[in-house]
């Protein structure tokens, strides 16, 4: 294939951009540069209040412990500053699924941490749908990806990889073969190379769905956890293992997700987005261990 001068110029521009980001942020951000992807699982049995909503101060503490462990920087503020710069324009990609949304308290905590890293308020947006029309997301230089873990009728699981589906105007083009190639979303120009942190909310995950709205309280449980990492594929991989183990415990037999969440494995083997293989994941567990399901 012959390359035009325009192609070479474009390539050169992209290469310089990649170089810019590479030198600005810790090598850990680039999961495939290391042999293993680190995933932090933090749990606190006190995090859920009597009404089922999270206690913001405990959640905040969990988030701080997770980010300091992940970055290896003792102080939470400095840890955040190692991944977010004051001149960043930050989109916090949340999830508003009505039955199990990203907790508002966690959205607030993340925004506070980004503000504390020196980013101006007008350069931060927390949103799910409508991000393609959101001026902050349109200009974003950094993304924080946060959503609850749940089973899903078509993709097997609602994952961090899948959380970027709203970055495309044509989500249905990602549906074939039960969303096998969702990792392609991460190569869209609006997304590629921007994700600084992935947080899979495991406070009350949904391990099974039934009916048109795929939700019933019978199939959620209090897990009291957060999974945090730079590699979304690795974080999703751990999350799905927990779901599968919960299903096995609840149904008293092997009950793999149906359909299988193949997009996680293929994000690794086909799209090279990150590590799905448990042998390539360094899992660090902090806090409450009972019922950890790993």
């Amino acid at each position: 294939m012959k390359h035009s001068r325009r192609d070479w110029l474009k390539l050169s521009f992209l290469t310089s951009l990649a170089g810019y980001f590479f030198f600005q942020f810790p090598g850990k951000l680039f999961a495939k540069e290391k042999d293993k992807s680190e995933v932090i699982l933090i749990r606190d049995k006190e995090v859920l209040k009597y009404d089922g909503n999270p206690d913001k101060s405990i959640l905040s503490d969990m988030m701080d412990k997770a980010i300091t462990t992940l970055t290896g920087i003792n102080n939470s503020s400095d840890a955040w500053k190692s991944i977010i710069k004051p001149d960043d324009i930050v989109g916090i990609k949340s999830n508003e699924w009505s039955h199990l949304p990203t907790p508002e308290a966690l959205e607030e905590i993340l925004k506070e941490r980004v503000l504390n890293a020196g980013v101006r308020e007008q350069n931060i947006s927390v949103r799910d749908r409508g991000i393609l029309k959101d001026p902050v997301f349109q200009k974003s230089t950094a993304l924080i990806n946060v959503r609850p873990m749940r089973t899903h009728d078509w993709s097997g699981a609602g994952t961090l990889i899948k959380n970027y589906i709203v970055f495309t105007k044509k989500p249905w083009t990602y549906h074939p073969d039960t969303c096998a190639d969702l990792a392609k979303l991460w190569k869209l120009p609006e997304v590629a190379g921007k994700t600084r942190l992935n947080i899979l909310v495991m406070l009350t995950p949904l391990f099974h769905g039934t009916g048109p709205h795929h939700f019933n309280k019978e199939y959620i449980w209090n897990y009291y956890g957060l999974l945090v990492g730079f590699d979304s594929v690795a974080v999703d991989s751990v999350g799905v293992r927990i779901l599968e183990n919960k299903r096995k415990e609840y149904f008293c037999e092997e009950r793999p997700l149906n359909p299988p969440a193949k997009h996680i494995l293929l994000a690794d083997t086909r799209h090279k987005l990150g590590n799905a293989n448990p042998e390539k994941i360094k899992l660090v567990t902090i806090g409450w261990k009972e019922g950890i399901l790993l």
Partner: protein
Amino acid sequence: MNSKSLTELLPAEHSGWKTANEDNFYDNESLYNYIDGGAELYLSYGFNKVISRNYIKPGQPEIRVDVFDMIKPRNAYGVYTHSREKIEHNFGQGSQTLIGAVLFWKDMYYVSVISQSETDEVTKAIYGIARIIDSSIPGEGKIPGVVKLLPEDNLVAESVTYFHHPVWLNYFAWLFEDNYLNITKETSAVWAKYETTRKRAMLLLVQYPDEHTARLGFNSFTKYFFPNPENGLITKDINGRWLSSRLGGKLFVAIFNAPYKDFAIALMDKIHNS
């Protein structure tokens, strides 16, 4: 069925619960806007339209009713069997009750009556509304014939899952990387589990429209699962469980995860002798 007829299946009010707002209708194009992420399941079975109505009562959580016109009874039955965890016959031709929810199928309809919170009053209202809808649907639909071919001994009844879309070949486990069995809308397929002394065995039946299509599906399957068919169509998988397959006329049978060779053969024989 048109929108008006769907409307007539639902009560205008029930025990003080009144319609909250105008009914919403969704079709093949717009279902994504309503049940984002869940639409594909209904589309995979075949679906015409759904009516969605909310009922409210002061001091009580909202009740949401969805009635899906699935075009044919087999589609409604298929969706009902999907993710079914227990066998109940309290509503329609088969139902499932959960916390704050009644799900059932009848004729070509799949019905869901749910509430986010459950109080005694909500539960009564959910059951009452479900009962009215059940009575409003006059006919009954036939359960697909392939389901009736399942041997009953040791059958885990709630595991029976009917389908005619290739995606659901991977319903119990990720076994198929492609549509090796050429599942189309013209085929009728069913998965079922059987109790054994160890882990449950899985049975797959596929009924093809003609013997030629069945042979093509069978050949494609054996090429992938039995690379050395001269050794017979029964073999151990990497977990030490038995996998077996057979074709009889238009009917394809495969057994996965059988604990013993004899178990697989006996189950296979029961189908062909039935």
